[in-house]
């Protein structure tokens, strides 16, 4: 059964079409991958699902549990159960890890927060008192985002390039956390151009130039992705446009 359904989704930024008539159905409790080369529109897709600033003026519809979320704000979508981990997570000067996670959950007990940190592959005792600023590496911030995702127990978790800036061992911890999300019944959507990440998924969708090219099992898409998509005949130019839009 589809928990999140995208119908004929199109989005243009600065006059360029970034998402082109996409229709995708994400199954409840499954791990999906949305793959494609740089500039395919994957991150724009995630930003549009989350309703971020600059990504609201789309055509088509986004259904969550069979109801349109088109007019909802980011926090309204989040309260319904949709959440996003950014490719490059934000820094927060002075904001402690325990407050970053604690702000979004009812149970703010240190032990509970440590449990989320541990599940995301962070050292809980060392991490809990740290600050979410430049003193955390990019990899640590990505794990922290996952910890905060685990804390809010989402119904749909979008993970944008979960492997970027991550070493091999840390990537394993991130995959462990993805499995925890799946174990909790969360529908996971991995946004990636990495075959290693793709292989974590059960179902996959291949995007190029804003279009859906192929869909199927991760194995099938992996073959296609390896064999046909790289190198790709399409010009993937919208990356700059996406950057301007605040990606």
């Amino acid at each position: 059964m589809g928990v999140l359904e995208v119908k004929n989704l199109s989005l243009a930024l600065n006059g360029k079409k970034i998402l082109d008539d996409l229709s995708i159905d994400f199954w409840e409790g499954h791990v999906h991958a949305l793959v494609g080369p740089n500039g395919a529109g994957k991150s724009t897709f995630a930003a549009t699902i989350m309703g971020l600033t600059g990504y609201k003026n789309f055509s088509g519809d986004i259904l969550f549990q069979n109801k349109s979320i088109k007019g909802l704000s980011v926090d309204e979508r989040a309260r319904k159960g949709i959440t996003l981990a950014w490719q490059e997570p934000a820094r927060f000067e002075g904001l402690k890890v325990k407050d970053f996670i604690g702000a979004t959950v009812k149970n703010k007990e240190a032990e509970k927060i440590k449990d989320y940190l541990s599940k995301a592959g962070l050292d809980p005792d060392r991490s809990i008192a740290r600050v979410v600023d430049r003193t955390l590496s990019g990899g640590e911030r990505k794990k922290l985002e996952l910890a905060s995702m685990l804390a809010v127990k989402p119904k749909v978790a979008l993970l944008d390039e979960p492997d970027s800036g991550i070493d091999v061992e840390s990537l394993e911890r991130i995959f462990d956390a993805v499995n925890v999300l799946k174990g909790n019944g969360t529908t996971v959507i991995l946004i990636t151009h990495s075959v290693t990440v793709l292989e974590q998924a059960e179902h996959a969708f291949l995007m190029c130039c804003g279009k859906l090219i192929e869909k199927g099992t991760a194995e099938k898409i992996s073959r296609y992705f390896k064999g046909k998509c790289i190198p790709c005949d399409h010009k993937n130019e919208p990356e700059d446009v996406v950057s301007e839009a605040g990606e």
Partner: protein
Amino acid sequence: MNEKENLIDRLYQSADADPGILGDPEVAYVVLNHNTVVGMNGDDGLEVEVDERTDGIEAFMEVKEGAVIRKQVHLCFGMIPKEGVQNILMNVNVKRNARISVLAHCVFPNAVDVQHIMDAKIHIADGAEYTYLERHVHSPEGGIKVYPKAKGELGKKARFKTEFELIKGRVGLIDIDYETVCREHCVLEMTSRISGTEDDIIQIKEVGHLNGESARGALTTRIAVRRRAQASVYNKLTANAPFARGHVDCKEIVQEEATAATTPVVEVNHPKAHITHEAAIGSVDAKQPETLMSRGLSEDEAVELIIDGLLS
């Protein structure tokens, strides 16, 4: 509980601080209500003298040579009345190789028309260390004007760290004017964190002169203004000797109709000295609130948390 104990209790409770700390005989403290001393305790290595004058208070604090004051010294400069002028002349002398840390609560919980004027002269001798944290708690009415002024002189290898915090209650008007001169190998850190709202006015002038070889200095300002509040920051760091190093860092978050201006001035007068600066003014970066909103916080809650972090 006598009248003075009652006053101390009220001032400390207004500052969200525990007056019980003053019950420790090893904790040195001075508590003022308006221009009257309501409590005081000394320490072997520390001499404190307070003169009540007709127009205010003059205080002398001297840390003896080599003395290390183990427990943080508490100062409480407060006013329970709604109106009045608190005028404090403060003379601090930290002698060679001495060390002291001071926490000052400046508490004006009922201020409707109050002025707090502080004029401090600070001398930190060679190898000495002075840490001064000043936390203000003001009334919600905004009827207060605060004029903290300090001139500091640091000897060789001295360290001076000062933090000014005003994030509870209305600022009213604050006009900070600090200037410190540093000699060889000394370390200066001056930090201000202030949150303004309504028609509060925040004016900060912090100046550090790194005159000695290998002197180091950092001026840090964090301000959040909203409604119609105004902030103006002037941070100046000069490096006048070889290997002097410094950094000026100012961040101001502006919301609604508030305005902010910052002037970071870095001046290098020696080819082997180096100073950097960064300044950022504006709204919060959209990615920050959206990250928190994507976990379910409302936009207002997210911005509040971001500002709390910045000012923490």
